[in-house]
């Protein structure tokens, strides 16, 4: 008998149809993977089960959990269910915890509410739960606050809250999307163990096919509110009967076609980073002791040739973004020198940097945050033109913007729109248009595709590859995603704790990692082919 059964569920918010005839079921002890791209209605499905939908939402159909008709249940019945029989883990561990309450209070809160346990009793159970999710008493007393924990540790607290009362069903909505690959592997392991221990049903929502394949027994593929295909994970993904399933699988392992990498052995280097170190002032522990500085980047040296595509990979917090900012002269190194086209950029004034700025540009991760919402595309894309010696006239400027938009596959009429009128993928194209408008020699891309859906991601990677071939732009790709590094770069640098611990040809490093850090990254990276093969093997 199924624990959760969704039949013919339709959902509208205002006039927008979110879900259409959705079917899904989860049995006790089963992991159901729900896959789809953004806007496909994955999160709304989860919120329907919890009955946490926005006010304007109207649901019809049947959702039954453990014999209870969820859509007809009273608010009191739902309150009793939520957190007790159904737990939920959210994507963003930064915002899912209350910053002014200790982790102990937050885990104990649900226990006290649902079991009427005493404070001491609830804390005792909270303690055991935190031990279980890998936050032992010695290092993580109940009195810790969320801001004292790292992202991965916070996600463990969120899981502890969700699982504290041994729910029959756990809903995990993109539980690892905000984490790096190593943390992702740890959190997935934890979820898998918890499911096995208490025969919990797990509804795992993700856009990442590889993650779901590794975890789920059965899989449901959702597109624009409709179920495209559902069934046994291994069979569904190995046979790929449905065209959309095939499309998703291909997009997640997409490698852009690139001609021979540029011959990069000789010639003057484009970028040289020599012994660069960056310290941040640490927190003072006592009024009389000097604060110990935190070393974000530690004696890093590297060099890049023109037209070369280099990946800088590492876990979150390893200092890769700090290094990128120093290369872009947005931050000053504490020591060491950075030379761009043979000229030192460190310690120069903004005016002296102008010629260098023309030749280096940046693409950021978040396609939503990297544009001023109050300006039109024309102004936004034209922003780097500001560094040209000769200011273009208005007509010339429009011409250049139109050209750049054309190069990234957008229409030139788009220049009179505001950024919010574009989708995430289109905004990332805008971001690239802004980066290439001055015909730079180097583009630094900080996780440029990690916020995008797989099919959009494949398109953007293609665009990067094409521009690299066509314009000879060198890329420094900062990423924690090895598939991206493999898809688009010739060289890879592995960074760990502020140091570069390994470097070499991308394929060699990723296939035969030497350093501990690189090995951990490679082992933890989800890989669709590997996951499918393992699934098939398990089933014989």
């Amino acid at each position, binding site marked *: 008998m199924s624990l959760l059964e969704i039949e013919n569920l339709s959902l509208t918010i205002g006039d927008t149809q979110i879900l259409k005839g959705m079917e899904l079921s989860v049995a006790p002890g089963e992991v159901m993977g729900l896959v789809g791209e953004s806007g496909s209605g994955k*999160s709304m499905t989860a919120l329907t089960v919890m009955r946490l939908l926005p006010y304007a939402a109207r649901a019809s159909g049947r959702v039954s959990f453990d014999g209870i008709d969820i859509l007809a249940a009273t608010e009191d019945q739902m309150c009793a269910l939520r957190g007790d029989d159904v737990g939920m883990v959210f994507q963003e561990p930064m915002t899912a915890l209350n910053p002014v309450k200790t982790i102990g209070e937050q885990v104990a809160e649900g226990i006290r509410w649902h079991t009427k346990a005493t404070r001491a009793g609830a804390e005792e159970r909270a303690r055991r739960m935190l031990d279980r999710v890998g936050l032992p008493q010695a290092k993580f007393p109940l009195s810790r606050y969320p801001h004292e924990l790292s992202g991965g540790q916070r996600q463990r607290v969120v899981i502890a809250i969700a699982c504290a009362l041994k729910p029959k069903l756990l809903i995990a*909505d993109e539980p690892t999307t905000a984490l790096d690959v190593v943390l992702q592997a740890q959190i997935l392991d934890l979820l898998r163990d918890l499911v096995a221990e208490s025969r919990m049903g797990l509804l795992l929502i993700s856009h990442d096919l590889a993650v779901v394949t590794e975890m789920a027994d059965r899989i449901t593929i959702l597109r624009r509110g409709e179920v495209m295909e559902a069934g046994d994970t291994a069979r569904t993904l190995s046979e790929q009967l449905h065209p959309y399933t095939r499309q998703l699988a291909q997009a997640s392992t997409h490698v852009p076609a690139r001609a021979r990498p540029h011959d990069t052995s000789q010639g003057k280097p484009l970028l040289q980073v020599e012994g660069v170190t960056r310290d941040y002032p640490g927190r003072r522990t006592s009024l009389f002791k000097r604060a110990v500085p935190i070393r974000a980047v530690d004696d890093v040296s590297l060099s890049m040739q023109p037209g070369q595509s280099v990946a800088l990979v590492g876990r979150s917090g390893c200092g890769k973004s700090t290094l990128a900012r120093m290369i872009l002269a*947005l931050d000053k190194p504490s020591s060491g020198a950075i030379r761009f086209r043979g000229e030192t950029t460190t310690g120069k004034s903004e005016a002296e940097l102008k010629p260098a700025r023309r030749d280096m540009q*940046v693409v950021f991760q978040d396609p939503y945050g*990297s544009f001023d919402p109050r300006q039109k595309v024309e102004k936004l894309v034209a922003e780097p033109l500001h560094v040209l010696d000769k200011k273009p006239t208005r007509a010339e400027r429009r011409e250049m913007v139109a050209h750049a938009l054309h190069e990234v596959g957008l229409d030139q009429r788009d220049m009179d729109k505001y950024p*919010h009128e574009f989708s995430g993928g289109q905004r990332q194209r805008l971001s690239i248009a*802004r980066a290439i408008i001055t015909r730079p020699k180097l583009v630094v891309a900080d996780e440029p595709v990690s916020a995008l859906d797989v099919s959009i991601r494949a398109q953007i990677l293609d665009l990067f590859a094409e521009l690299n071939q066509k314009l000879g732009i060198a890329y420094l790709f900062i990423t924690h995603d090895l598939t991206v590094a493999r898809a688009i770069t010739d060289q890879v640098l592995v960074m760990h704790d502020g140091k570069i611990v390994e470097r070499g040809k991308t394929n060699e490093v990723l296939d035969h990692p030497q350093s501990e850090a690189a090995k951990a990254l490679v082992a933890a990276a989800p890989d669709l082919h590997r996951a499918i093969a393992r699934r098939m093997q398990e089933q014989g």
Partner: protein
Amino acid sequence: MTLHIDIPEETMSGILAKAFRNTAFVTGFVITVLILAMALVSYVWTPYDVTKLVIADKTQGPSLAHWFGTDHFGRDILSMIMVGARNSIAVALVAVGIGMGVGVPLGAFAAARGGLIDEALMRVNDLVFAFPALLSAIMITAIFGPGAVNAIIAIGIFNIPVFARVARAGALAIWPREFILAARAAGKSRTQISIEHVLPNIATLLLVQGTIQFALGILAEAGLSYLGLGAQPPMPSWGRMLFDAQTRMVVAPWMAIFPGMAIVITVLGLNLLGDGIADILDPKSRRQR
């Protein structure tokens, strides 16, 4: 959660449609427009001449000839309130202008520079803030003599730290955003970024604070002229009218009631307007209705 509910940037017609559904905004807007209209009309027409004393009509209660009655010199109170509105609004408006004109660039500059400069500027700011505004305004007018201009300067100076703080806090929230980083990577100077990207993004914040300060300015002006430090007779002002009414409360209560009402209604209207604007422009305060 991947619940990317995109908050669409508002179109002008969308904002207007929402504005007309917002009771606070509509009420505040109507009151403010009425008061402004009254002040403007007073330049060309008032029921009676406010500088002419008609002792024969002194301290008359409200009647058809004098809707709000007359004061102890026989002047028409409605006419005086109309002219007084002009005075109150002018003082408050210019004072807010001074506060914004100096405070906003100061705050934006402090946020853009950071470090010691920021620290020093904001501590001086705190120092000015720490003085009770009305008391210091009294001090200034006491030193430089009473009058509308000095009242404006006094109230204006104490508006500066308010706007500097609001502008700095708003700007600090904008600076770490990625589009600012992108602008810096494009080689724009801090001043340019402040003008092009930061100010437009904190404009709504300043607008809301502006209406609130405007209301406070009117109160402060009333307070100063009540103490005889604002506009000087024969120029009527609301605060002065209250002062004159004080000793005649029992025999001529209308002399106090109508100017008092004028102050209360104006301040209320401006506060409602400010609340309304904040509600309409802030996507976070939007409620499901």
